[in-house]
Every structure is written in structure tokens, then in C-alpha cells.
């Protein structure tokens, strides 16, 4: 339909790259929800390379676009509303421009909310780099009754403006062509730049004069002066440290007298924006009701909204159990099981000693199996997540839940990651990325393991009927409630102690609804799964081999193993809670995967994990009070190794992991003792023991 659409023949060969006679570095910038990733995917396809920005948890995506001998290295800058150091995303974008010196910035704007989008352009134009503006979602703007004349805007701004409908691949080829031209010949780039509001123009000049000659290389002094007036924390701190003391004192005094300068900085930008869009945008306020308005009538309605939320998450779990569970079992039995058999046969034939065979077959391949079994759940979770994220619904869910999340010192955005925890704590921890502030992200990650994941629910569902017969269901629900109660209590306590005063403002855009893009979803799932396999996968594998080794050496079965010895050494502790060493070992083994607890009990209590046999054995050997304790501890116990691994991946700090493990251990054990002593005191244990 469009002869100039981007044809994707990626990945490009290295040969082709070598023949490129010119190479440019391009930064792709834009506010969130402007369809930037669609454009990035169109341009770079499978040549994408995903990593992290140095020292940040924000993903860094880079890809190659090659056209008629010119190669463009395109870096997808994280979506940012501005370039003030309010979030990692914003800091990354500006650091990239100042330090990596891209040849050109391609900024993508949402034509249906142009005024707000141009705020980022106002900031970009203060930096020493030529900019091309892509006006995306022209079709959406039209349906909203907004007409944008790109060439009029181009004339006003003094920089190239290209209209786009990225999801239909319209205009993207022109955009990159114009970007290339500008990168080749940036000399004539003289756009109309915004100015600070009149009342503070003089102050800006004075600050700039004071800075003169003291600003190190990549920073333009105009820009630094502006950022100081805006109260930018990072620039202020740098200036304080690097400027001569006397000069800093004078600047500091000046800034102190003009605390309100930010209003004129922002005001000046919007004044400039008004001038720019004045002739280019026709925006008759017809008061027509858009699709988004119509959908929001239900999505954020106090009653229907909650119902929809429930439905969406019901669907998520149904999909997980209906699709992921069978695949998981198939992987376990048909793939891993068969591989284990083959490998064992081959090794035995080759005459390998039996403990080597066992180590490779059960330890290593078993560990691979554990990693693999996470894949179906993660794939489905990330797919559904990306679908609702891309459609615009997720922000509505966060909006609906904000009130409740305030109870634990978090806000709406933390709801989703925590809720994902019911399926699996791994995506819950990874999902915390959506929270901008480090404090909020950390608190969410610390609370996530307290959400009872499906593996723990499986253990609960198996053991509760064994001990509590007819009251199994209320007891199980009680345990889930206990977890949530503990989560709230821990959240409240952390919020008033460690995280005191670290409240982060809840300011969130609710984007227009739109049809999710399959390519965007696919790439999101792929990148997340790959990140999990790379980092968490290897840690899980190592840990499971380690635990396997501990439970199989020095030989003579698990009863004589190091793990069992360790369990026995804890017997005094166990007595306090009515547990013998076997239960302790089962608890320890649940660290690899929660469902391991059942298998371990099966081995230690001498049945062949035939569920009925095990149930009967357990019922006769363990008192109900002890069972209550055991369940309480397993529900609240240290997260599994996969969760710990992603917690490390996301926080990058073993100190927080240690803190989390100790915290959860303390909670689990004290809750266990409390439940056990309480039950004993109530006579439950005695009754059944007798």
C-alpha cells in the first residue's frame, strides 16, 4: 500500500556492514506511549541488541539500520517526559546525548497530545544535537478531531517534521531519510528555541555569567544554568562539587532567592509551544466522546472497574493454568525425563561412576528442568502483561488500586507486580521495573515474596486436606489471608522505618487505548525470557546442583546426607516448634522450588511419593499443630532460588537480598511459633496427638 514502507530484511550480514561507507549514531527519543518502540522495531528488526544501561535496571536497546551504503546505529532511549533528573530514564537520555554525541536525535511525538509532547522537544533543543521530529499517531489525532499541519509546524520550529502512522509503517522511511540527511549536514540546523519566562530572564543571564569558564567539556553552560534554575538535583550536586567555592556560594544565593524560577522555565517552554502549535494545529473542542472516554466509563468506574480488573486477572490465571501447566508437565516428563533417561543410559554404557551419573542426570539436568519449567508460566505472564500494557489498560488497573496500595506505603503502580506474584514471584520481582523511584521499586521487590505463589498454593492444596479434612478450605484461605496480612504489616512497618519519608508522588499518564501490536509484544516477551535465562537461569542451575550434592553426599541415601545432618543439627530449634528434622529438611529443600517440599517429605517419610500413601503416613506421624506450623512457615519462608536470583538481577545488591532473606526467615519462624503455640494452647495439637 505504501511503496516507501520499511522493508525488513534483517539481520544484516557483517559483510554488508563493512561495505557501509558512512556510519551514524542515532538516538531515538520520545515521551512514553508515543509508539516509539514500534518505530524502533520497524527500523532495526532482529538486529536488536538488548542490555542494560550501565548501573541501571533500565533496558538499553540498540539496533542497526542500513540503507544504500549508510549504516545507522539506532539507540532506543527510554521513554521520558523531560530531561530533568527526575527518573533514571530522563538521566539516561540526557547523558547519552551529552556523552555519546549522537549525530542526530529522532524524536517521536504523539500528534494527539502535541503540546505535552513538545515539552521534551523544548528540552532537547537546549542540547548540542540536531533533532528531527516524527509526528506519530496522526490517524489517532484525526479521530480525536485534531488536525496537525506538519509543514506549518516545520516552518515554525525550524526543524524537519515528518507525519507518521507507525503501526501502518507510514512515514517511517521518510523519517529515517531526513534524519540521515541532517546527520550528514548538521551545520544549517538553526531551530527556534524556547526561552525562560521574562521575570527570570535576568537571573538566568547572571547565573550563566557566573558559570562562564567553569563548566567542563560536554556540558553547555546555557543548559547547566537552566538546569540549576529548575532545581535539577544531579546538576546542582555536580556544580556544588566542581565549581570554585566562592562562585558556588553566589550562585546558591541567587538560586535561593529565585526558588520559583522553575515555574518560569516551564512557563517559557509552554509559551514557546503555544506559539509553535498556534498555526499548525486546529483543535476544535467539539466535545465528541472518544473511544477512550467510552471505555474509561467502565474501566475506572468504582464498581465496573473493579469487576473488569477481577475479570482480567481471572483470565490471566486461567490462561496460566490452562496453557502453562500442561506444557510445563510435558517439558518435565517428555523432554527432561526422556533426556535424563538417555543421558543415564549413555553414561552407564560409557562406564561412568554412579555418582557422576547421578550428578549429571539428577543434579545438572534436574536443575535445567527447574529452569525450563518456569518458561511456560513466564511466557504467558509476560504475553498477557505486554498485551494489557500495550493496550493502555494496565495504567487503569494501577489507578483503580492506588487507594489500597497506599495502605502499605506504595502507590497504584506497585499493584500489578505484586498481583503477578500470585502466579509466580519471579515475574512479580521483574515487574517492579514499572515503578520509577528506586525506593518504591525496592519496597515492591521486598514485599513480592510475601505474595503466595502458585507453587506454594500447590503445597498448601496438597497438605491441608491431609491434616484438616473438612476444614481444609477455610484453613487454606486462612493461610493466604495470613500472607496478605503479613505483607500489609511488613509494608506498613518498612514504610515507617527504612522507607520513611521516601514517599514518591503518584503521577501517571493514562494513555489512549489502542490495539496492541503483536511485534512489540513478541519482542517484549523474548527480551524478558532471555534476561531470565541468562542471569537467573545460571544461578538456579548452580544452586540446584549444590543442594542436590548436599542431599546426596556422602552417600547412603538422603537420611545420611549433609543436608540431613544439617537438619538434625537444627533439631533443638525444631523442638521449639514441634518439628522433627525431616520437616526441617523439607523446608530447606523448598528453597530450590516450593513444590519440592512434598517430594522431600515423600523421600524422608519413606513412601514413594504415591500421594495417597504419603498423605496417610503424614497424617499419622505429624500432629495438626505441627502441620499448621509447617504450612505457616512454608507459606512465608525465604523465596525460592529463582526469586532470589531475579531479586539480585533487579536490585544489583546482595545486601538487600540478605536483608530480605533474614526478614522473611524471622517472619516465617516467628509466625510458625506463634501459630504452633497458639494451636497447642487451644488444644488442637493435643487432641490430635492423643
Amino acid at each position, binding site marked *: 500500500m505504501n511503496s516507501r514502507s520499511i522493508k525488513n530484511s534483517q539481520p544484516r550480514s557483517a559483510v554488508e556492514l563493512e561495505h557501509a561507507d558512512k556510519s551514524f549514531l542515532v538516538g531515538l527519543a520520545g515521551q512514553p506511549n508515543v509508539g516509539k518502540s514500534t518505530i524502533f522495531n520497524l527500523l532495526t528488526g532482529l538486529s536488536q541488541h538488548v542490555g542494560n544501561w550501565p548501573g541501571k535496571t533500565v533496558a538499553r536497546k540498540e539496533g542497526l539500520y542500513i540503507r544504500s551504503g549508510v549504516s545507522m546505529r539506532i539507540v532506543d532511549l527510554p521513554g521520558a517526559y523531560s530531561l530533568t533528573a527526575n527518573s533514571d530514564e530522563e538521566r539516561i537520555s540526557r547523558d547519552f546525548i551529552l556523552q555519546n554525541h549522537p549525530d542526530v536525535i529522532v524524536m517521536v511525538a504523539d500528534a494527539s497530545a502535541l*503540546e*505535552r509532547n513538545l515539552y521534551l522537544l523544548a528540552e532537547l533543543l537546549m542540547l548540542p544535537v540536531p533533532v528531527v521530529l516524527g509526528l506519530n499517531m496522526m490517524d489517532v489525532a484525526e479521530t*480525536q478531531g485534531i488536525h496537525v499541519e506538519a509543514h506549518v509546524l516545520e516552518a515554525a520550529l525550524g526543524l524537519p517534521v515528518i507525519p507518521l502512522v507507525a503501526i501502518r509503517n507510514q512515514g517511517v522511511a521518510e523519517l529515517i531519510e531526513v534524519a540521515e540527511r541532517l546527520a550528514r549536514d548538521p551545520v544549517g540546523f538553526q531551530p527556534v528555541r524556547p526561552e525562560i519566562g521574562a521575570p527570570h530572564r535576568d537571573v538566568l543571564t547572571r547565573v550563566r555569567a557566573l558559570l562562564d569558564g567553569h563548566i567542563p567539556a560536554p556540558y553547555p553552560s546555557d543548559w547547566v544554568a537552566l538546569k540549576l534554575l529548575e532545581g535539577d538535583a544531579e546538576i546542582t550536586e555536580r556544580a556544588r562539587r566542581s565549581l570554585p567555592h566562592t562562585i558556588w556560594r553566589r550562585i546558591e544565593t541567587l538560586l535561593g532567592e529565585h526558588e520559583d524560577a522553575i515555574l518560569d522555565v*516551564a512557563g517559557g517552554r*509552554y509559551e514557546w509551544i503555544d506559539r509553535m502549535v498556534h498555526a499548525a494545529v486546529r483543535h476544535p473542542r467539539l466535545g465528541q466522546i472518544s473511544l477512550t472516554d467510552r471505555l474509561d466509563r467502565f474501566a475506572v468506574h468504582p464498581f465496573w472497574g473493579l469487576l473488569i480488573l477481577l475479570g482480567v486477572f481471572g483470565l490471566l490465571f486461567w490462561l496460566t493454568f490452562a496453557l502453562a501447566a500442561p506444557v510445563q508437565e510435558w517439558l518435565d516428563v517428555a523432554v527432561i525425563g526422556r533426556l535424563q533417561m538417555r543421558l543415564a543410559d549413555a553414561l552407564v554404557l560409557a562406564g561412568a561412576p554412579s555418582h557422576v551419573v547421578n550428578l549429571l542426570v539428577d543434579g545438572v539436568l534436574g536443575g535445567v528442568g527447574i529452569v525450563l519449567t518456569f518458561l511456560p508460566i513466564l511466557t504467558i505472564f509476560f504475553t498477557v502483561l505486554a498485551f494489557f500494557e500495550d493496550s493502555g489498560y494496565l495504567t487503569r488497573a*494501577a489507578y483503580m488500586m492506588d487507594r489500597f496500595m497506599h495502605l502499605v506505603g506504595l502507590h*497504584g503502580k506497585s499493584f500489578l507486580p505484586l498481583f503477578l506474584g500470585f502466579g509466580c514471584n519471579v515475574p512479580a520481582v521483574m515487574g517492579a521495573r514499572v515503578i520509577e523511584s528506586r525506593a518504591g521499586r525496592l519496597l515492591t521487590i521486598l514485599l513480592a515474596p510475601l505474595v503466595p505463589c502458585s507453587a506454594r498454593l500447590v503445597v498448601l492444596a496438597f497438605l491441608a486436606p491431609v491434616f484438616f479434612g473438612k476444614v481444609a478450605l477455610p484453613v487454606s484461605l486462612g493461610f493466604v489471608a495470613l500472607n496478605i496480612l503479613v505483607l500489609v504489616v511488613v509494608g506498613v512497618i518498612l514504610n515507617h522505618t527504612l522507607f520513611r519519608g521516601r514517599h514518591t*508522588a*503518584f*503521577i501517571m499518564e493514562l494513555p489512549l487505548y489502542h490495539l496492541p501490536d503483536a511485534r512489540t509484544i513478541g519482542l517484549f516477551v523474548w527480551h524478558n525470557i532471555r534476561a531470565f535465562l541468562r542471569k537467573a537461569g545460571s544461578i538456579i542451575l548452580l544452586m540446584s546442583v549444590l543442594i542436590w550434592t548436599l542431599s546426596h553426599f556422602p552417600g547412603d541415601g538422603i537420611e545420611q546426607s549433609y543436608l540431613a545432618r544439617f537438619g538434625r543439627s537444627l533439631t533443638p530449634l525444631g523442638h521449639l516448634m514441634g518439628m522433627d528434622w525431616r520437616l526441617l529438611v523439607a523446608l530447606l529443600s523448598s528453597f530450590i522450588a516450593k513444590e519440592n517440599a512434598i517430594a522431600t517429605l515423600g523421600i524422608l517419610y519413606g513412601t514413594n511419593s504415591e500421594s495417597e500413601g504419603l498423605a496417610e503416613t503424614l497424617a499419622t506421624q505429624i500432629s495438626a499443630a505441627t502441620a499448621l506450623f509447617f504450612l505457616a512457615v512454608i507459606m512465608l519462608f525465604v523465596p525460592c532460588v529463582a526469586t532470589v536470583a531475579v531479586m539480585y538481577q533487579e536490585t544489583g545488591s546482595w545486601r538487600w537480598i540478605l536483608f530480605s532473606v533474614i526478614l522473611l526467615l524471622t517472619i516465617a519462624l516467628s509466625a510458625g511459633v506463634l501459630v504452633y503455640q497458639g494451636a497447642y494452647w487451644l488444644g488442637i495439637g493435643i487432641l490430635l496427638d492423643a
Partner: protein
Amino acid sequence: MSEQQSLQLDRTTTGTRAVVDRLLGSRNFASRLAAMGLSVGAEIEVLQNRGKGPILILVRDTRIALGRREAMRILVEQVHSEQPKHKE
């Protein structure tokens, strides 16, 4: 409009049209709001305020959710629409 008393955003009702008058709180707060379109002088419409929980507003064609604590720090002046209401 000039003689109007300014009002905290969390005290407005659903459907209110207003102009942002002042932003209380840190420079950081003001800068975050400005980047999302909420600057002094911007016209807003309150899409939802249920008296509890977050507030939903429309500003510069953007729907923005604000926590109550954040809304409290935004002072607005109510605008009476020029067109008379159809039903009175």
C-alpha cells in the same frame, strides 16, 4: 476569573473545568508536573474525583492520574464555561 478564590484540586468535583493557578511543594514536583503538561496556566478538566483515592484529570489532551496527596498541592481556579448549561 481574577477575583476567584483558588481551590485545592482534591476539593474539586467531577466535571470541573479549571486553570492551574499555583503549584505547592518542591521544585522537583513542579518540574515533574510540568513535563506531563500540568503547568501554571494550563486548562484542566476533572474527569473523576470520588472524594477518596486518586484523581483523574484531562490536561493538554492527556489523561493524568494524581494521588490525593499530589492533588492537594495543586491550586486551581474554577472556570465557568461560557456556554450556559442546557439543563438548569
